């Protein structure tokens, strides 16, 4: 919560709109053969939620907030790490004919 990154009102709406079109444009061009890695890759990207969970946990004032924050960080970290590992594994397997051993 800081002046350098204050996002309110219309600025928030502009960011939301531009980011939505960005996602649409980037994904619209991905060929069907990559749809599974793509889904798990975008799944990995929303693992950024772990950052928010860390903020919530660091700012927790009561045992209840600490508990929920702790669960949040575990879940968010699992999302990010799991999404990364499976995407990386899948993408590593795609080869063309001339790149074969």
């Amino acid at each position: 919560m800081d002046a350098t990154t204050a996002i309110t009102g219309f600025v928030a709406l502009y960011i939301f709109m531009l980011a939505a079109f960005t996602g649409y444009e980037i994904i619209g061009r991905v060929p069907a053969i990559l749809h599974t890695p793509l889904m798990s890759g975008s799944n990995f990207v929303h693992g950024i939620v772990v950052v928010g969970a860390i903020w919530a946990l660091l700012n927790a004032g009561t045992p209840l907030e600490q508990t929920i924050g702790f669960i949040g960080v575990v879940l968010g970290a699992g999302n990010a790490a799991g999404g990364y590992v499976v995407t990386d594994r899948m993408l590593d397997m795609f080869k063309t004919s001339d790149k074969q051993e």
Partner: protein
Amino acid sequence: MTVNFIIAAAFFIATLLFIYGLKRMASPVTAPSGIRVAGWGMVLAVAASFLYAFDVREAAADNLGMNLFLALVALGIGVGWAWRSGKKVAMTGMPQMVALYNGMGGGAAAAIAAVELYSGNAQHYGFAVTVLALLGGLIGAVALSGSIVAWAKLDGRLNKTIRFGAQQLVNGGLLAFAVLLSIYVLAVGDGGTPDMAITLFFLVSLVLGILLTTPIGGADMPVVISLYNAFTGLAVAFEGFVLQNPAMIIAGTVVGSAGTLLTFLMAKAMNRSVSNVIFSNFGAEDDGGSDIEGSMKSVEASDAAINMYYGSRVIIVPGYGLAVAQAQHKLYEFVKLLQKQGVDVSFAIHPVAGRMPGHMNVLLAEAGIPYDIIHDLEDINEEFPLADAALVIGANDVVNPAARSNTSSPIYGMPILNVDQAQQAFVVKRGQGKGYSGVENELFFADNTSMVYGDAQKVMVEMIEAIKSLG
């Protein structure tokens, strides 16, 4: 330079790396580097987030040491568990793991919402922030419990499709109840934290996620996973607004819109609308019981193999049954034998082959089959009439011509691969059963179709041996 400036700069770079990484994922050549670029963005963002410790709320100042310790432990548990499970999972099990990791992200977003609401922080920042916290909490909780149900179904832990009469009504009622609780929390506003109402709100949201997902059949799960992926993205974006965190807003929104697009693409490939997937009972109805004239002819695996060996063009249509029988490697061995003889071999992939879109491509890639001989439905469907033979392995509904002609068929209108137009079709199948949709397949009765009965792996071994014995 303040700590806040460093955090903001780190998040900016992380967001840039995410979008650049996703963009690189648009081609199989650049995709592996794309995910790594995005991965470094994540490492940077997480490292920077610990700088939040320099500027915590007064209420948390006394807990800071403990909270830092908890955060590190939680991070260790989450990363450790997910890293190991992600390394271990078989390629056939990928859809359920993606569902599970996605649900965890939704849960994390809901957890953030819960902390901000219980602490009264969201309410303190006003009406709009509270609305976004509640909305993100609801969507995140639905994505969490719904994804867990989807995971259980795909993993074979929950086989029943649970439906009851007034399900739509109950779901509507739950949603209305959640909205009422939200209005109550908003009405209390700043200065009060109605713990009871907040707890109920999250419980109702979790139950709603379960009830929304249990009636949906296994065949429709890909659409559901994709939808919940978009949900989680949105929930993350909303909580990003609550926390004033631009990285969360942008990453969440990008995934939200991308996931929405992917969901619609997938539903279209299955010839259904998204609402139809979620609110109807596919697979429950009987097919019209239309009897098909003609009879199935069977042929030995070796004869089919030799027939293809002397052809000039063969198109292979793999389905999930191929992966279940773990026959991809044997299939590729067979393909290499054909290619050595000069046969032009290509693979035709239906958009919904496998358990999620693109899943079959991953399963073929695992066997080392190069992706330049693998083609999408639109690219290859015209070429079936030019093929000497089509080999169908473990696929059924996606090659059923009834989808083109029989208006009473439940799969009518679904785009299919035109295997029936090939000079000769060989269908490798375990037995005479029906496909996932429960519909009889006209292709199997066609004059130019021969059935090769048996386990896919065994059949492939027989085919390989037949060709090797030719010398």
